[in-house]
């Protein structure tokens, strides 16, 4: 079986490192090649890593509430960089405060993300979606 590559990171000024370590472990265990760019990652760092490793998916975490500001324009930047079709997943506490998730999800889907996950999602959910979206 082909080993697909994922770029994993925590976007913006966010320093939440615990979940990042766990996702890295879980995705690696599930058979993916994980390029982990860690916390405090800019949009440019995600894209650069994705191009360099020919990744199939960019997986963005945001735990600190600024996700909306930080993620805007990521799809457009991907298009400009020639990887416009790459899968974009995002998850975490994406907005400030407890908001209805379906509204949050809608906002991020409109921004060009393929999958949006609420707080507390287990890695297994994303792994299943990855397999589906990548035809594994």
């Amino acid at each position, binding site marked *: 079986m082909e080993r697909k590559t994922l770029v994993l990171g925590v976007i*913006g*000024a*966010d*320093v939440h*490192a*615990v979940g*990042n*370590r*766990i996702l890295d*472990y*879980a995705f690696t265990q599930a058979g993916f090649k994980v390029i982990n760019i*860690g*916390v*405090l990652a800019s949009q440019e760092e995600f894209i650069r890593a994705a191009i360099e490793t020919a990744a199939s998916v960019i997986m963005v975490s945001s*735990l*600190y*509430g*600024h996700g*909306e*500001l930080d993620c805007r324009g990521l799809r457009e930047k991907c298009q400009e960089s020639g990887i416009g079709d790459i899968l974009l997943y995002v998850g975490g*506490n994406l*907005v*400030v*405060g*407890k908001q209805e998730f379906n509204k949050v999800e809608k906002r991020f889907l409109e921004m060009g993300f393929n999958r949006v996950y609420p*707080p*507390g999602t*287990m890695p297994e959910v994303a792994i299943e979606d990855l397999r589906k979206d990548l035809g594994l």
Partner: protein
Amino acid sequence: MDLANRTIDPEEFFRQRQEVLNQWTTGKDVDFEEAVAYHKSLPQSKVFGHKLAEGKAKGITFAQPRAGVALLNEHLELLRFLEEEGEADFLPTTIDSYTRQNRYAEAQTGIDESRMVGRSMLNGFPAVNHGVAACRRLIEHLKVPVQVRHGTPDARLLAEITLAGGFTAYEGGGISYNIPYAKEVSIENTIKYWQYVDRLVGMYEEKGVSINREPFGPLTGTLVPPSVSHGVAVIEGILAVAQGVRSLTLGYGQCGNLLQDVAAIRTLPLLAAEYLNKLGYSDFDITTVFHQWMGGFPQDEAKAYGVISWGAAAAALGKATKVIVKSPHEAFGIPTKEANAAGLRTTKQILNMLKDQSLPMTEDLALEEKMIMEETRAILDRTLDLGEGDIAVGTVRAFQAGVIDVPFAPSRYNAGRILPARDSQGAVRILDFGNLPFHEDIKEFHRERIALRGRDEGRDPSFQMVIDDIYAIGKGMLVGRPKI
């Protein structure tokens, strides 16, 4: 390295100050002498260190929330709500994450967008952008003392502005606001940044103005062994006192096992006093802060109230001077003001019910205290050795060597080699010691406790055990047992 644990030379301080105050336009409004006069006009009831010392003398535990939003009026309204409806003993001003990275232009975008969309687009109050006068407006309209809480590796400008703005307490430190909050900033640099902050506080103290300083105890907030966070807290306490800080609050984040938590909060001020005295310092007042559970929270509010209550109970039984309070919305990030006040009231109820009770000394508690004391001393003694007696130099080398090592930290200046796991009673032990300078007896104690858990669960200790522990509280458990 030109780093050393000694009072910053005045010339060097004023050279830096020019630079710092020019980092953003609001820096020009800082006038130290005028700020001293302003502080002296505040009533004692608004002075953080004063109220802490009173509480310590009475043996009571105070409650303090976290809170901050983008705009001044909304932030003031939030704090007043927590004061009135939450019965908060102390108030915070939590700073947004852009300011923490010194990205004041992005913070300004956040302010502008917040005005436009009518809800806070920032996860805190961008105090640098708002400036000195805005800070004073907060202080003047609130009854209780207010502290700056953030997570800023280079917090010099933020300190200049908020202290001139009348805040009487300032959280952070060169290690505790670097290792869990930065990826690429060297410890040498952040220690210097924080020596500046501590020196600034020392200058206020020399003018008779009390500013409380609080290193950030919980670090990454996830399975941090007490001796690791205690080691860091004591070092930051020494670095602060060396610059003239007098009112010092040392912190610890709840691990979840009552005996370990009580042992930790009781030993923390003892260890700090021991090393401060050993290094020749005597003019300080140490109080303690206990952080309610810093790891993942259950999404269900009723369950979250349980986690909050258990943190309040441990703080009260351990006789911490204050407790930092979580809200029932914790799993979703930043709470509404109502949820924040509810977490406070739950906490206050427990603190009031338990204020006349404490945990009596027992063999088990004595053992936990002994282990924490011995482990912390091992870390501190080796750190002093590495620095040839200088704690600042020693700290940089200790991180390089993995002698101090914080689990799950984002910083590349942290070795990241140790691996903690819970034992069968939920106490945090160490599965992989990395380079922690522990005697074989201590290591054997940890190995035994974790092996016992392995036997209980019929599996070998591994990283999966650690992951299970991290998810456990979200599922209602302390120890992450395998599914049966």
